[in-house]
């Protein structure tokens, strides 16, 4: 998420997370979309609607398949007028917004600006605001929220108390060891109890095993150490399968177990961190996508159809670190995964355009996608007209490039076969990665941190096109403008607690069978609310005794600001080549 002001301090302020969301009526959207000078706008990335994704597992998989990117016929695609990668993550002190305009005003302004918008390819909030009927509904709904303040049990705004991931000191200290290795068992197994003790203390576990019961990957502890536990889980899963039932999850003490079965694989998440089943399922889904990204779907299926007892560890060798770093980012709390969104770097619109143009100017015929990524945030995308990038795919790429060390530690330019399962799970694309060192005073001994590093990522379907991609990169870098300054990051602990609150909000507002637009939530440690419109989702966390009226006003101010700054904060559509 872009950091608009670069000053994060969640203790004193409220935290706001906004993403655009797909709207529900393609026909209406077609009408409001203005013609662009470059012709019809290509379908935007099919950011999986989290709700649909979760309510039907088979659908979720289908939704991530390749047809989605090219689909012109699928109704859902047209609804995705927002670049799925868009999201903002900003901080704002709610208390300082004492005299903000009412929500009603902000929404009607959105509607007004839609009417006068001349934006074409680059429009988003403006061009995709629903016709006035829906706006009216939203308006009424939000007004209802404001006027219903004295009544905490309003129909639109629900006041609920959730269990939260505890934020006391002991847990903080414990959480710091969450990512430490559990240790190795001695040759004489003398310390097995100790190592198992470490293993049991982890807040979160992920296991992947084959349907035949072979452990494939575990986040903590090796197969030997925990084989009995894997055996128990395997037994439980197959017990249900034998009776042609399907085990989705269960609880044991304060542990929640969630099981996802994909083809020949069982993926299991075990969490003490108060996440919902749906959220855990999304995380498992992403781990499965990482496996597909390594192997491709046909080769995964082939391996198991030839030999059901295949040991997948071997073919996956070397990619364990990718799974582990993905798992760790889920455990730390990943807004991107929760919202199926991506962070964009906040830069001036002209700067983004000049980067886009530089990419387009130097574009090679073998290029499919070109990305510029700074500090894990998307700066610029070049894509073919008919294809978008799935946030899920981008997340796998970002994880590989920035979180896992395999690429960066290589020390040179990389050429990596990678399957982007959202784009096409049947084959590999080839990815050129080069890190730029943009620092002025270069001290070569210092490693560039994730936040400082800028990567150029060029993806081609042609596995022989490394040198074409390299040439393109060299030409691109020649006229490189110095644009980036990294934003400070929040620490683990703050993020984790904050994410727990966001998780609750997300869970509440997207709960099945609810049709809530605004969801307000008070707990001992925070008051928070979520606001969902067809265009965006807005999440806000403030002090427990924060004034609700002020929060609403703050929200409306922020929406206005985001609307104003939209093309700095978001990548709207990207550059089309």
């Amino acid at each position, binding site marked *: 998420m872009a950091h608009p002001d670069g000053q994060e301090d969640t203790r004193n302020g409220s935290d706001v997370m906004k993403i655009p969301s797909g709207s529900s009526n393609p026909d209406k959207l077609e009408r409001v979309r203005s013609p662009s000078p470059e012709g019809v706008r290509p379908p935007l990335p099919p950011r999986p609607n989290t709700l649909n994704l979760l309510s039907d597992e088979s659908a979720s998989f289908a939704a991530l398949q390749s047809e989605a990117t090219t689909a012109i016929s699928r109704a859902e695609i047209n609804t995705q007028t927002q670049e799925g990668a868009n999201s903002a993550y900003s901080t704002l002190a709610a208390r300082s917004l004492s005299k903000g305009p009412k929500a009603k005003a902000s929404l009607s302004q959105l509607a007004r600006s839609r009417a006068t918008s001349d934006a074409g390819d680059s429009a988003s909030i403006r061009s995709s605001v629903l016709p006035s009927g829906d706006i009216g509904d939203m308006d009424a709904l939000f007004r209802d929220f404001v006027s219903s303040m004295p009544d905490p049990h309003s129909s639109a705004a629900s006041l609920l108390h959730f269990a939260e991931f505890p934020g006391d000191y002991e847990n903080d200290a414990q959480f710091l060891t969450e990512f430490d290795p559990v240790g190795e068992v001695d040759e004489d197994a003398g310390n097995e109890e100790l190592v198992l003790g470490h293993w049991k203390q982890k807040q979160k576990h992920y296991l992947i095993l084959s349907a035949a019961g072979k452990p494939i990957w575990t986040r903590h502890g090796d197969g030997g150490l925990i084989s009995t536990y894997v055996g128990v889980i395997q037994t439980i899963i197959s017990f249900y399968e034998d009776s042609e039932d399907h085990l989705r999850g269960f609880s044991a003490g304060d542990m929640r177990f969630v099981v996802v079965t994909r083809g020949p694989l069982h993926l299991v998440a075990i969490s003490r961190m108060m996440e919902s089943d749906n959220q855990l399922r999304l995380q498992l889904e992403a781990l499965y996508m990482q496996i597909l990204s*390594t*192997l491709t779907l046909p080769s995964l299926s082939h391996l198991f159809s030839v030999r059901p007892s295949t040991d997948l560890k*071997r*073919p996956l*060798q*070397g*990619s364990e*670190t*990718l799974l582990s770093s993905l798992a760790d980012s889920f455990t730390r709390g990943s807004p991107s995964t929760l919202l199926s969104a991506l962070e964009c770097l906040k830069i001036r619109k002209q700067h983004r355009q000049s980067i886009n143009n530089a990419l387009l100017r130097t574009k090679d015929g073998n290029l499919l996608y070109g990305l510029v990524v700074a500090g894990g945030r998307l700066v610029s995308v070049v894509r073919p007209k008919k294809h978008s990038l799935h946030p899920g795919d981008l997340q796998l790429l970002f994880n*590989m490039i920035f979180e*896992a*060390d*395999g*690429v960066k*530690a*290589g*020390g*040179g*330019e*990389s*050429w*990596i*076969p*990678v399957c982007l399962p959202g784009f096409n799970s049947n084959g590999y694309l080839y*990815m050129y990665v080069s890190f730029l060192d943009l620092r002025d005073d270069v001290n070569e001994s210092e490693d560039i941190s994730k936040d400082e590093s800028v990567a150029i990522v060029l993806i081609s379907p*042609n*596995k*022989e*096109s*490394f*040198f*074409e991609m*390299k*040439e393109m990169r*060299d030409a691109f870098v020649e006229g490189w403008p110095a644009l980036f300054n990294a934003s400070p990051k929040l620490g683990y602990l703050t993020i984790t607690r904050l994410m727990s609150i966001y998780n609750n909000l997300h869970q509440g507002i997207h709960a099945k069978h609810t049709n809530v637009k605004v969801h307000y939530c008070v707990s001992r440690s925070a008051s928070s609310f979520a606001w969902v419109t067809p265009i965006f989702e807005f999440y806000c966390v403030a002090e427990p005794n924060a004034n609700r009226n002020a929060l609403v006003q703050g929200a409306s101010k922020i929406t206005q600001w985001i609307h104003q700054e939209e093309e700095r904060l978001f990548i709207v559509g990207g550059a089309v080549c």
Partner: protein
Amino acid sequence: MSESASGNAPKPSSSVKLVLLGEAAVGKSSLVLRFVNDDFQENKEPTIGAAFLTQKCSLPTRTIKFEIWDTAGQERFASLAPMYYRNAQAALVVYDVTKPSSLTKAKHWVAELQRQASPGIVIALVGNKLDLTNDGGDASSASPSAREPESAEGDEEGAGQEEGDAQDATPGDARKVSTREASTYAEEESLLFFETSAKTGTNVVDVFTAIANAIPESSLKTGKGPAAGQTGLGGRAADESRVNLGDRNTATAKEGCAC
């Protein structure tokens, strides 16, 4: 390091495409990083795909610019290897002196290179992780530590396995592949042979220098335009403005031509 541009007189400079092959976790990337950056990282994450690096090596009469393809050792990447060794003038086939199976794998790579790569390719067999043996980082003392029976050396494949089982290393010595076994094999196959430690740096630059010296003058293209050097096209790219990895010897390479 040998890369320093010693002397002011311009020496002829030429590019050499070099590929590293070998089992996973034998230290291919570490060798390259030692050679290119004079750096070493413990517990380096496995390479994904392949990394491309360049480093100059200065010889008395000329400068060699290595264009290095550091490939991932995992089996699933093996099918991509032809793309990297095609047109390569040199190959480093690396094994781990503490792991006999890695020498077996190295022999497979050598066989594949002899079958499929450019006929004149210079191959160096490199036993890495010398720091884990009693020979330590001192290469001069890297003498055969095994009591390997001479008779076993007739069968390379068997020798690797047998050695690993038979050898009782002295305490603190993790060596499982004797110098003699590997060097005998290298001699039979006309390979350059070195034992190295990327960790201590022992013999690393020597390997690359030896390769640079072994590349026949005739196979070097000098007098490349400055532009060609800058854009870093493949070693043989001088004649074509745009070059695929497989611009040459497509007949001998299984992967077929590009585009």
